[in-house]
């Protein structure tokens, strides 16, 4: 599979697995650009936008959502077989999403607590990212993804260029935008120092801490940040939840959360 999309008018497919549709919605939110994009790509499969569905193959597939059922496991393989360049979009597709919390819970137990007929449910015990099941050509992180980044990656692919994703920390975006640090000046918890850039430091721009929607920054030093935030007076249990959040299945966050839970007597 190559990053290059060579067809004159490449065919785009957008697919959904376990998710809230928010990432696909970001695509629809590209109000000013969507028509121009539709001139350059054939939108062959995008159920959230149109019920008209064209069969594959697809030059580019955007996949939203995590794998949570046995049917998902089969369907993602079908999508892979039909797609030349497959991009997983959003925290569900790249990290299992908030629903990955089931991975550390007893699924059988809560099934019977919540549903009158748990036997009608077809669900796996885990919520896993797309890359656990098939090879993925690129991942666009975020909860939701940044629509500008989705557009940028697609426009680059149309020119035959690789994605060149942002790899800085949220703090770097935060400072480039001239925001005042909420940890240093506000004594608030913020996950920015361990989180991958991409949102433009949205939460700090509104005076609150980052939730780590974009997953761990490369080499994230979870324990050092956790120690600092604990010093602000945050209980370890609450801190563990911050690391257990939307992208908490990533090893860097998971191990920090486990460390905090272990020490929480």
């Amino acid at each position, binding site marked *: 599979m190559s990053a290059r999309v060579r067809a004159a008018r490449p065919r785009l497919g957008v697919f959904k697995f376990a998710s809230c549709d928010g990432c696909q919605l970001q695509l629809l939110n590209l109000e000013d650009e969507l028509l*121009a994009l539709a001139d350059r790509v054939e939108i062959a499969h995008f159920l959230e936008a149109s019920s008209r569905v064209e069969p594959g193959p697809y030059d580019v597939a955007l996949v939203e959502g995590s794998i949570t059922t046995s049917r998902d496991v089969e369907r993602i393989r079908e999508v892979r077989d039909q797609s030349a360049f497959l991009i997983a979009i959003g925290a569900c597709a790249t990290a299992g999403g908030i629903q990955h919390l089931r991975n550390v819970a007893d699924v059988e137990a809560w099934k019977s607590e919540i549903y009158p007929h748990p036997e009608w449910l077809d669900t796996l015990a885990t919520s896993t990212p797309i890359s656990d099941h098939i090879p993925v050509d690129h991942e666009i992180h975020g909860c939701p993804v940044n629509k500008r980044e989705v557009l940028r990656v697609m426009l680059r692919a149309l020119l035959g260029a690789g994605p060149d994703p942002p790899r800085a920390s949220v*703090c770097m975006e935060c*400072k480039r935008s001239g925001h*005042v640090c909420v940890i*240093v000046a506000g004594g608030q918890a913020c996950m920015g120092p361990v989180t991958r850039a991409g949102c433009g430091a949205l939460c700090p721009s509104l005076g609150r801490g980052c939730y780590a929607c974009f997953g761990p920054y490369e*080499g994230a030093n979870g324990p050092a940040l956790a120690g600092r935030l604990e010093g602000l007076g945050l209980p370890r249990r609450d801190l563990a939840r911050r690391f257990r959040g939307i992208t908490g299945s990533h090893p860097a966050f998971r191990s920090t959360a486990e460390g905090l839970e272990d020490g929480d007597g």
Partner: protein
Amino acid sequence: MPDASEPCWLERTRLQRLLDVLLERGFEVHGPVLRDGATLFAPVQRVAELAAGWRDEQTPGGYSLEPCGEARTFGVVSGPGALKPFVFAPHEPLLQVRMDGPGSSFEAEPVLPEGHKVAVLGARACDLAALAVQDRIFLRGRFPDPHYAVRRRALFTIGVSCTRSVSTCFCTSQGTGPEVTGGYDLALTELAEGFVVRFGSPEGEDLVGALGLPIASEEALRRERSDLDACAEGIERALDSGDLRDLLYANLGHPRWEEVGERCLGCGNCTMVCPTCFCHDQRDEPALDGAASLRVREWDSCFNPEHSQIHGINFRARVRDRYRQWLVHKLAGWVDQFDTSGCVGCGRCITWCPVGIDLTEEVDAIRRTEGAS
């Protein structure tokens, strides 16, 4: 018109007149305003918008404001923003690239900033020293940076000498402050009733003339001197710079790097707030029609793993390596490269490091246990 050597006097009540004259002359005036628990330089029209009546406390990893109980306009020593963004933009277009059709040649046209006139009121001595360092990097080399040059030409600086410092300041070690002694258009020192004013450029001189300022009294100058001396004496943090370059080069294998690498988040805040750090990245942003793209540059950091990624290999793969790169480059490599230290002692990297890592402490630790490697 007073002689250049003769400081003038501006009554506190006439500070608005200074702003008015700058605004009349077409400057966008930026001054320190309160924003989200700190001060930032922001456009102002009225003196009342400035962060008067407050003072800051700064510690490693901590910043807070409190009322200072007097009518000081510049009671807050500094915020996270220095002069850097005014000349070296955090994000800016460099080149517009166009292609006529598939396979055809392309044209690239520089996109220069407009260079609208900006006056910054309230730059500290360390900020002005950092601007001089950045001038050296961006303008004096073999390839002067045209974008920086446009913004720099349009910048008018009004420095304010420090009559108080915060715990993270160490300009006295770096010979950059607390008194504004160069690199300014106008320099102010704030006293209870007003400001001692000096000009440092023909534009500054012209402005002083337009304001029709009287000569400062001997009494005002005497008080100015004692306030400045008291401020300098009150600065306790120090960086022993004498043999720093050799010390760091000789200790590249010191275990302290490993230890600081455990504490450091690799977040890059220190480099973003540092008024001299100049690293940047360039990216191409394709246009919708597929026939054009914009090349933009933005602030990058040696703490960004991508910064040391070359042909699939990261030669500073660990945070330890990146912290060492930052400190050794800033305090030693710059001396070889630019004939100046990269540190002006402003203390921002200490205050705005979320975990309060203090470069003066790191250097001391290495000095104390030199040869431990």
